[in-house]
C-alpha cells in the first residue's frame, strides 16, 4: 500500500518532470500535480507566544496572502510536545495529503525522522528547518522532503562570540547561559564560543549554567554570579536573546546595565531594541519571517509545477545553510521594524528560492 502511493507519486513526478523539460513555458503547466485551490499550507511550530515564533507565523501568513492562499494556511502548534507535533501532522494528512505542504520548525531533532517518514508514506510535501539531522538527508530517497534549511549554529556562535570578545577588548571573564543542553543549537553555539575563546587567551570562562532558553531562569543565575564574581564578570554570553534579556535585567538591578556587554542569538525585537540602546552588544538573526515562509514558497513552486520535482535538484539545493545577520548597534535601526511582503517577494520567486543559501550543510 505504502509502496504503491510512493510509486504512483514518483511516477507522477517523473511525468511532470518530463513535461517540464519539454515545455518552454515558465508558468504553470497543465500537468502540475495540484490545482491551486487544492494546495494546503501548514506551518508547524512550537507556539506563538515568543517573538521568534510570532514572526515565523507572520512570515508564513505573509507568504500565503501574497500567493493568494491565505484561506488554505494552517498553523499547528505543539506547545513543546514532540509527540504532539508528529501526531498533529499525521492527523491532518487524513485528507488531501498530496497537496499539503509542511514548513516545519522541529520541536526537537527527534521529530525529524517520523515527520519525513510520514511525508514519504502519505505523499505530503515537507520542508524542515534548523536542526542537525545526523545521517538523515532529503536526497537519500526522500522525494517528498523538498529541502532542509539548516542554520549553522556554530557559525552563529562564532559570530556573536567575536562581537563579545571585541567589546571586552579581548580580556576579562565571561559567564555563559546555556539553552536546553540536549538540543543541537545549544551545543553548537557553545562550540562556536569555545572556538573563539581558543583564539583569545585573555578571555576566561568563569562559569556556565543551563537556563533552558528561559528569561526567568536566567535572572537568578546571573544574580548569583554577580554575588560570586562581582566585577570580574566582563561579559555575558547567552545562547538566546530571552536569556540574554533576563541576564540584562539582573545587571540592571545591580546598576550594571550597559556597562557589561551582553550577547544573545535570535534577533527578537526586544533584543534589537536593547542593542540599539547599547545595553546589548550583538544578536544574530536567522530571520524568522524568511524561515516561516521559504518552505511554503518552495512547496508551492513544486506543486504548481513552477519548479521541477525536488529529486532533480542538486544536493546543495536540498540541504543548505541559511545566511544569518549579525545585528549590532550599527545596523540595529534597519531591523527594528517589521518587514513588508514586498521585501521578501523576490526571494519567494521560484527561480530564486536559494538566494540565502550559503553552501551545503553538513
Amino acid at each position: 500500500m505504502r509502496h504503491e502511493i510512493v510509486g504512483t507519486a514518483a511516477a507522477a513526478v517523473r511525468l511532470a518532470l518530463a513535461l517540464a523539460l519539454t515545455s518552454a513555458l515558465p508558468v504553470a503547466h497543465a500537468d502540475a500535480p495540484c490545482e491551486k485551490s487544492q494546495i494546503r499550507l501548514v506551518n508547524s511550530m512550537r507556539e506563538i507566544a515568543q517573538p521568534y515564533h510570532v514572526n515565523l507565523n507572520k512570515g508564513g501568513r505573509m507568504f500565503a496572502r501574497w500567493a493568494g492562499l491565505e484561506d488554505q494556511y494552517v498553523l499547528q502548534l505543539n506547545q513543546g510536545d514532540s509527540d504532539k507535533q508528529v501526531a498533529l501532522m499525521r492527523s491532518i494528512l487524513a485528507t488531501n495529503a498530496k497537496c499539503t505542504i509542511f514548513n516545519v520548525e522541529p520541536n526537537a531533532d527527534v521529530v525529524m525522522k517520523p515527520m519525513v517518514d510520514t511525508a514519504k508514506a502519505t505523499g505530503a510535501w515537507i520542508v524542515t528547518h534548523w536542526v542537525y539531522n545526523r545521517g538523515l538527508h532529503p536526497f537519500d530517497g526522500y522525494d517528498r522532503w523538498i529541502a532542509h534549511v539548516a542554520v549553522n549554529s556554530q557559525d552563529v556562535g562564532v559570530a556573536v562570540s567575536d562581537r563579545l570578545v571585541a567589546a571586552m577588548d579581548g580580556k576579562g571573564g565571561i559567564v555563559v547561559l546555556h539553552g536546553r543542553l540536549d538540543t543541537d543549537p545549544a551545543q553548537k553555539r557553545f562550540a562556536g564560543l569555545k572556538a573563539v575563546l581558543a583564539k583569545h587567551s585573555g578571555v576566561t570562562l568563569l562559569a556556565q549554567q543551563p537556563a533552558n532558553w528561559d528569561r526567568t531562569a536566567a535572572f537568578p543565575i546571573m544574580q548569583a554570579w554577580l554575588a560570586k564574581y562581582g566585577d570580574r564578570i566582563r561579559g555575558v554570553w547567552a545562547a538566546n536573546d530571552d536569556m540574554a534579556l533576563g541576564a540584562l535585567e539582573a545587571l540592571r538591578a545591580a546598576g550594571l546595565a550597559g556597562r557589561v556587554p551582553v550577547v544573545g542569538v535570535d534577533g527578537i525585537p526586544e533584543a534589537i531594541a536593547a542593542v540599539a540602546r547599547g545595553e546589548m552588544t550583538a544578536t544574530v538573526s536567522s530571520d524568522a519571517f524568511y524561515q516561516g515562509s521559504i518552505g511554503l514558497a518552495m512547496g508551492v513552486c513544486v506543486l504548481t509545477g513552477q519548479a521541477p520535482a525536488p529529486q532533480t535538484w542538486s544536493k546543495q539545493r536540498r540541504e543548505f545553510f541559511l545566511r544569518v545577520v549579525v545585528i549590532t548597534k550599527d545596523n540595529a535601526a534597519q531591523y527594528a521594524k517589521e518587514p513588508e511582503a514586498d521585501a521578501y517577494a523576490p526571494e519567494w520567486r521560484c527561480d530564486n528560492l536559494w538566494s540565502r543559501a550559503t553552501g551545503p550543510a553538513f
Partner: protein
Amino acid sequence: MESRHRPGILSVAPTAVRGALRASGPLLALLALTIGFALADSDFATIANLRVILDSAAVPLVLAVGMTFVIRQGSIDLSVEGMMAACSLLFACVVANDRMQVNLGWFGLPAAAALGGVFGLANGLVVTRLRVPSFMATLGMGAIALGAAMLMSGDQPPLIQDPVLRQWGLGQTFGLPNLALAAASCLVVGLFVEQYTRLGRYGYVIGGAEGVARASGLDVDFYKVLGFAFAGLLIGLAAAMESARLGLGHVGIGEGKMLGTITAVVIGGTPLSGGSGSVRGSAVGVLTLAVLANGMVFIGATPDLEKAIQGAIVLVAVVVANWHLRDRLRIVK
C-alpha cells in the same frame, strides 16, 4: 463495673521530644545545606549572596504561601504556570507599557491579584460544583489561563515602562530586595490568615477530616473555594512581582514554578494528603530550594549533571531530615 483508661496500643502518643524534632526536620535540612555550601565555597556565605538568595526566594515564597492553603485543605493547584502567564500579561497591559494607553500605576498589582483571584475562584467552583478532582480541574484551568495569556500577548509581549514599578522590582530598601520585603509581608499575611481566620483554621479541618467538617455543618465547599481564590490572589501577585522584575508581560513567566512550589510546600512538611503543615514550613522549603539553586551556581557543577546532582541533594536532604521520624507503622504516601 470497673473500667480502665486505655487508648489502645497503637495510639500511644509520641513523646514531646519527638514532636519537637518532627517540626524542625526541614529546618535542619536547610541549615545543613547552607553550611555545606558555605564550606564548599567561601564566597557563598556573604551578605551580598544572602540578598540574592532572598531575592530569588521572593516569588516562590508568595506562591508557596498560597499553595500551602490549597494543599492543606487536601487539594492541589496545577494551574500556577498558566495563571501566572495570564496575570503577568494583564499586569503589563494595565501599567504604563508600550502597547496600551492604560496606566494604573501601583493599582496594577491589585488588578493582577484580582485576576488571579478570579481564576482561583473558578478553580474552586469547578472542584466543588462539578466535583472534578482538583488535580484535573486546575490542570484544565491552567490551560485556559495560558490560552488567555496567549491572546493577551498577541504578537509582541508588552514591555513595562513604569520606572517606579521597575525600580520596585529590581531595587532594594534598607539593604533588602524590595521583592523579598513584599514576599515577607505576604508570609506575615499568610501566617495571620492561617492562625486567625476561619479560612486558615478550616483548611486544617477540611484537609484532616472532610467528613467531620461536613458533619459539623461547615460550609466546606465555600471554604475550599476561598482557599483556591486566596492562592489565586497570591499567584496573581507573584506574577506581577516577577513581571516588574523582568520588565514585561511574559507567557513563559511561570515556567517550572508549579512543580517547584509544590516541592517547596511538601519538603516544608505539608503532606499532599492535607490536614497539617504550616506556611512557616513552606517558607523553609522555599528557602531550601533557593539555597540549593543558588549553591549549585556557586559550586559550578558541570551543566550536564546539574539536574542529577540537584535531584540527589534534594533526596539526601529530605531523607536525612526525616530519618528520625521513621517508624514501623508510619504511613507515608
